[in-house]
Every structure is written in structure tokens, then in C-alpha cells.
């Protein structure tokens, strides 16, 4: 026969125990497994993008290397460090929540949010940089630079305006971190540079182009010829694919970062109220799991997007 446990007996309700659970242990276990299951689906979500990256990179490695060299590995590396610091502060937040130390929790959550915001700020700088240099993959979505060499630029970009008699080289000197000349781009198109084509020529000479590249960078069977003519428009399309992947992957990552900041804001408010103690801190732990996951995605994005083609540059640097 069935025996039963009376669910109506009065017992001590720990703070935060939800009605569907029998006790805190069941609740904590459930929340922990729940967040991990959620992270598994996030792994598969980003995984689809990594798959697209994998397939296209395998087919067009030179285009990817060329695209990657346009990205500033310094900012990317800095962002990686920023996220790692934020992961540390997040882990310490959980540590202090366990100890019931409200003040340290609040400080560390604020620090975590600070570093998260710095990350987003750097991303904004990077995206603006892409816009200015014509590497946003959609034609018309780049900065329109009228013909004639002069350009209307914001003060943040250049220390001086380029004047008509300045050569392209000296104009380039005014820019702190890019050595490319400022070509006109009246329709805001996506564009690449000669140094990108250099990589293809190198690969052509060294005979390590893939089969897809021989078709994809050349027209009319030129690819199988030792000195075949590179079709710049076709090559540009493949570099464009790299930038599309770059923007979608980092954009989706940044979106997750923004959501993470929202979660942190809520956590900050609850921590301020002193809700998290040695007895009840699993929301902090759970939020931490999400934050660390976002960090891990970036740990992979950084080398795969930023550091691809650096070894082709004979000594690196920009």
C-alpha cells in the first residue's frame, strides 16, 4: 500500500525556497543542473557558427588569413584579458557570497560589470574602425569617403584633417595604428587591399592553395595555371565571407555579454539588499556559470578570428 508524507506540515522555510521544491538542496541541485543544461544548448547554438567558420576557413584559408590581418589583435587580446579579469571578479563574487560578505560581493559585481562594459566599449571601437576602413561586409554600410582624397572625419579619428596637397602616405602617418592609405569609397562599399592579394600570390607560388581556392579566387581556369591572374572581385567576395562570420560571431557574443550585464545588474540589486548568504547563494553561482561561459566563447573566438593569418606576415605586427 502507498504510504504518504504530509506536505502540509509546518516547517522552517528557508529564504528563497520555491513552492514546488521539498527543500533547499533539491532547489539548488535543480537550478545547477538547469543552468548547465542551458549552457549545453548555448554550446550547440554557438557551435553552429563555429561549424560555418570551420567549413569556410577550410575552403578559403588565404581569404580568411587576409581578413584576419585586418583585425587588430591588440584590441582583441586586450579584450581577452579584460574578460579573464571579469571572470576572476565573478568567481570571487561567488566566493564572497558563500561567505555572506555583502560589501565585497557588491564591489566585485560592480567590478565585473565594469570590465564587461570595457569589453563592449572596445568592441564598439573595433566596429567603428571596420566601418571607417570599409570592411563591413555589406555594400553601403561602410563609411562613404568621397572622391578627391579629402574626407570628412570626426576629430576622434585623426589628429589633423588631410588637406588636398598631403600625400596619401603622410595622411596615413597621422593615423595611429593603420598603415593603409585612405582610398575614396563614395558608395561605402566593402573593400580589400593589395596586401591581401599578396597572401594569395604567396600561396600560389608555394603551391598551397586548396582546390576551392583555385576555383574561388580565379576565373576561367586561371587557378590551375602557375601564374594565373587573380580575380580581385572573386577574392574580395571570399574575404567578405570572413567579415560576415566575424560580425555575426562577435555580434552574437556581444549580445550575450549585454544580457550578462543585465543579469549582473539584477544580481547587484539583490546582493545590495543582502539576499545572498552562506545559506542561499545559488543565484550568484548560477549567474557566474553564465558569465564564465560567455568568457569561454571569447577564449575560442580570439585566436580563431584574430590570430589566423599573423604567421604569414613574416614577423607579425601591423
Amino acid at each position, binding site marked *: 500500500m502507498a504510504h504518504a508524507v504530509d506536505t502540509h506540515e509546518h*516547517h*522552517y522555510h528557508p529564504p528563497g525556497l520555491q513552492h514546488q521544491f521539498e*527543500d533547499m*538542496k533539491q532547489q539548488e541541485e535543480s537550478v*545547477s*543542473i538547469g543552468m*548547465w*543544461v542551458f*549552457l*549545453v544548448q548555448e*554550446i*550547440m547554438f554557438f*557551435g*553552429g557558427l*563555429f*561549424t560555418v567558420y*570551420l*567549413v569556410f576557413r*577550410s*575552403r578559403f584559408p588565404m581569404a580568411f588569413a587576409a581578413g584576419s590581418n585586418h583585425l587588430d*589583435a591588440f584590441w582583441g*587580446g586586450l579584450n*581577452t*584579458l579584460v574578460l*579573464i*579579469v571579469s*571572470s*576572476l571578479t565573478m*568567481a570571487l563574487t561567488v*566566493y564572497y557570497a*558563500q561567505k555572506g560578505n555583502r560589501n565585497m560581493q557588491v564591489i566585485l559585481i560592480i567590478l565585473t560589470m565594469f570590465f564587461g562594459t570595457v569589453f563592449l566599449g572596445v568592441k564598439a571601437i573595433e566596429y567603428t574602425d571596420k566601418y571607417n576602413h570599409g570592411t563591413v561586409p555589406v555594400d553601403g554600410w561602410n563609411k562613404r569617403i568621397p572622391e578627391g582624397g579629402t574626407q570628412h572625419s570626426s576629430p576622434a579619428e585623426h589628429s589633423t584633417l588631410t588637406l588636398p596637397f598631403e600625400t596619401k602616405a603622410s595622411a596615413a602617418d597621422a593615423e595611429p595604428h593603420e598603415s593603409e592609405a585612405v582610398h575614396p569609397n563614395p558608395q561605402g562599399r566593402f573593400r580589400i587591399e593589395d596586401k591581401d592579394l599578396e597572401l594569395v600570390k604567396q600561396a600560389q607560388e608555394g*603551391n*598551397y*592553395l*586548396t*582546390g*576551392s581556392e583555385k*576555383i574561388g579566387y580565379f576565373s576561367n581556369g586561371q587557378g590551375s595555371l602557375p601564374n594565373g591572374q587573380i580575380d580581385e572581385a572573386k577574392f574580395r567576395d571570399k574575404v567578405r565571407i570572413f567579415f560576415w562570420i566575424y560580425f555575426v560571431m562577435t555580434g552574437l557574443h556581444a549580445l550575450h555579454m549585454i544580457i550578462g550585464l543585465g543579469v549582473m545588474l539584477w544580481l547587484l540589486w539583490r546582493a545590495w539588499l543582502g539576499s545572498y548568504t*552562506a*545559506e542561499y547563494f545559488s543565484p550568484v*553561482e548560477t549567474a*557566474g*556559470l553564465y558569465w*564564465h*561561459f560567455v568568457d*569561454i566563447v571569447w*577564449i*575560442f573566438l*580570439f*585566436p*580563431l578570428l584574430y*590570430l*589566423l593569418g*599573423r*604567421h*604569414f606576415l*613574416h*614577423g*607579425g*605586427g601591423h
Partner: protein
Amino acid sequence: MAEQHNTHSKAQEEHEEHIGIPGYLVIFGILVVGTILTYFVATIDLDWIFPGANTLVALLIAFTKMTFVVLYFMHVRWQSRLIWLTALSGFFWLAIMFAFIMQDYLTRTSGTFTN
């Protein structure tokens, strides 16, 4: 109910003994070193070993960093086998997706990867 409290705080205590602030700082240090390492190794051409060596090294470093974050920052080192299984299955499924899609591209007779 009282027993449950005791079990809970016992688990907490075990938790705290495993890694304290110095421990977290060590892991942080490892992650920073890994980042700097990957940045500089990327500038050295390793393709004379085999094509794609650079990528392999970068991925190995990334995997190591991820492992430290997962085990120590995400506390998986001290979690139940179910959590281990959950975390591993996510990566295993990702591996299935990569492997089964690439086995198509790698076995095409012309065009994709063959020279």
C-alpha cells in the same frame, strides 16, 4: 529539516577548503599567461611542421584555458558526475556536428580540399 541544513553547510565547507583567493589568483595567472602565449606564438610561422600547426597550437592553448575556467571558476571539479556528464556531452555533441559535416567535405573527390 535540520539535517538538511547541516548537509548543506558541510558541502559549503568542503567547497571553501578546495580553493581560496590565492587559488583563484593562480588560475587567473595561468589564463593570462595562456593569452599572452597564444598572441606571440601566432606570429611565429609553424607551418613547416605541418600545414595548420599554428591553428592546432592556438586551439590547444584555448582548450587548456577553457579547462581551467570550467574546472575551477565554474567549480566543475567539485560537482556531481551528472554535471560532468552534462558539460562533456555538450562538447561531444559539438564534436559530432563538426566531424560528421567535415567527413562530407573531406571525402569529396574534387573541388573542396584536394589540390
